[in-house]
Every structure is written in structure tokens, then in C-alpha cells.
């Protein structure tokens, strides 16, 4: 593994991990937004 090999390994893992985290975070955000919208609409319907 020459110098470049290590660089790509490091950069690859770091940015992959950050993108994965962002992806799961976005998914979690969408799921909560959907749930919240349902709760808000049901609350509006009730009163």
C-alpha cells in the first residue's frame, strides 16, 4: 500500500461513514415528520 493507498482508505472510510450517518439521520427525520404530521392532524380533527 503506497502513500496514496492509505490516503484513499482513510478518506474513503471517513466520508462513507459520514454519508451513511447522514442517510440514516435523514430517514429518521422523515419517519418522525410523518408521525408528527399524523399526530398534528388527528389533534386538529379532535378539537
Amino acid at each position: 500500500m503506497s502513500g496514496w493507498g492509505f490516503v484513499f482508505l482513510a478518506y474513503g472510510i471517513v466520508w462513507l461513514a459520514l454519508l451513511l450517518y447522514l442517510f440514516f439521520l435523514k430517514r429518521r427525520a422523515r419517519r418522525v415528520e410523518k408521525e408528527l404530521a399524523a399526530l398534528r392532524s388527528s389533534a386538529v380533527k379532535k378539537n
Partner: protein
Amino acid sequence: MAQAAQNKTRGRKLLGASALLSVLAGLYFGLIEAPPDAYQGNAQRIMYLHIPSILTAYLSFFIVFIGSCLFLWKREKRDDILASSAAEIGVLFTALTILEGSIWGKPTWGVWWTWDARLTLTAILLLIFIGYLMLRSLIEDETRAAVCSAVLGIIGFLDIPLIHMSVYWWRTLHQPPSILRPDKMPWENIHPSMLIALAVNFAAFILLYFYLLSLRFHVGEMEEEAKTRKLYRGSL
């Protein structure tokens, strides 16, 4: 209320876009623009990742400390969400920092892990973070979990300087400082374009960190609101 939420999300998108831009700039400067280092060759380029991510690791621990103090003082759920979000992202950045450190160690010292002061300190920080998240998940009652995590956040932060001192004294005992040691602050005699690369990457990491933090904080607040709505849906 909707207007405030509107420009908050717009602010977040702006932050996200600028984070993306600066990350790309950082990659360009770090990988293409800056020349290879005289001693370490290209492997030295990992430094542009390593130094900024160490900073974000310590920055997130500071935010956990701030959130914990505010929570213990005013007992507002918002501060607790800030602390837990900062801790979650802090664990990610600290783990990545250690990964970068060991990948950088292989070409420069020939071993994946050395008990170098900076690597050890980041590892300890990771252990405290993991303890923090474990503690928060293993206590059922939320207010108790919030208070106990806040206490660990504060005590952990107060302990950092002591850990630094003891690890550095321990390090100087065992391994006299050598030229090749990467924890010699690299900006003494450094090529200008390397300095730019480091600066750009610094900005990239800070922006990215605050983008992720604001997103995670927003998710935390929404989850909290969903919980209270479910709670109140039954009675009032």
C-alpha cells in the same frame, strides 16, 4: 410558529449546502493542490482529515458539557436534547478520528496503533462518550436518565484536563519526542498551500459538524414533541 420553523429549515439547508461546498474544496486542496510532505510522502494528506476531526471531537464534548450544565440549572428538555445530540455525533467523529490516526500511523510508524499521546487521549474520549450513551440508554425514567447523563457530561469534561496532563507526563516518560512523531504541531515549518488545505478542511469539518448537530437536534425536538402529543392525546 410556522414562520420560525420555516426559516430554521431554510437555515439548515443553507448550512448543509455550505458544508458540502467546503468539504469539496477541502478535498480539492487536500488531495490535489497541496504538495506531498517531504518525509511522509502522500500519507501526510490524512493530516487534513485528522487534525480537524480531533477538534470536532473535543468541540462536541464541550457542547455536551454546555448542554448538561444548562439542563441541570434550568431543567429544560431542550438542553438535554442538545447534549444527547452532541454526544451522538461526538461518538461518530471521535471514532473516525481514531480510525484516521491509526491509518496514518501505519505508513509513518509501520504499526496500526501506538500509544501516542494524542491517539490515547482520543481513545479515552471515545470511551467516555460510549459510557455516556450506555448510561443514557440503560436508565428507564427519562428525567433520571437526563440528570445522570448531565452529571457524567460535566464530570467527564472536568476530567479532560487531568487526563491530558497524566497521559502527556506518562508519554514523555516512555517515548522521548522524535521528529517523525505526527503530534508535533505541523504548522511550524509548513508549505503555504498545505496551510490553506488545512484551513479549508477545518472550515469544512466545523460546518459539517454544526449541520449534522442541527439536523440531529431538530430530529430530537420532533421526537420529543411527538412523545408529548401522544401523551396528551389521551387526556386533555
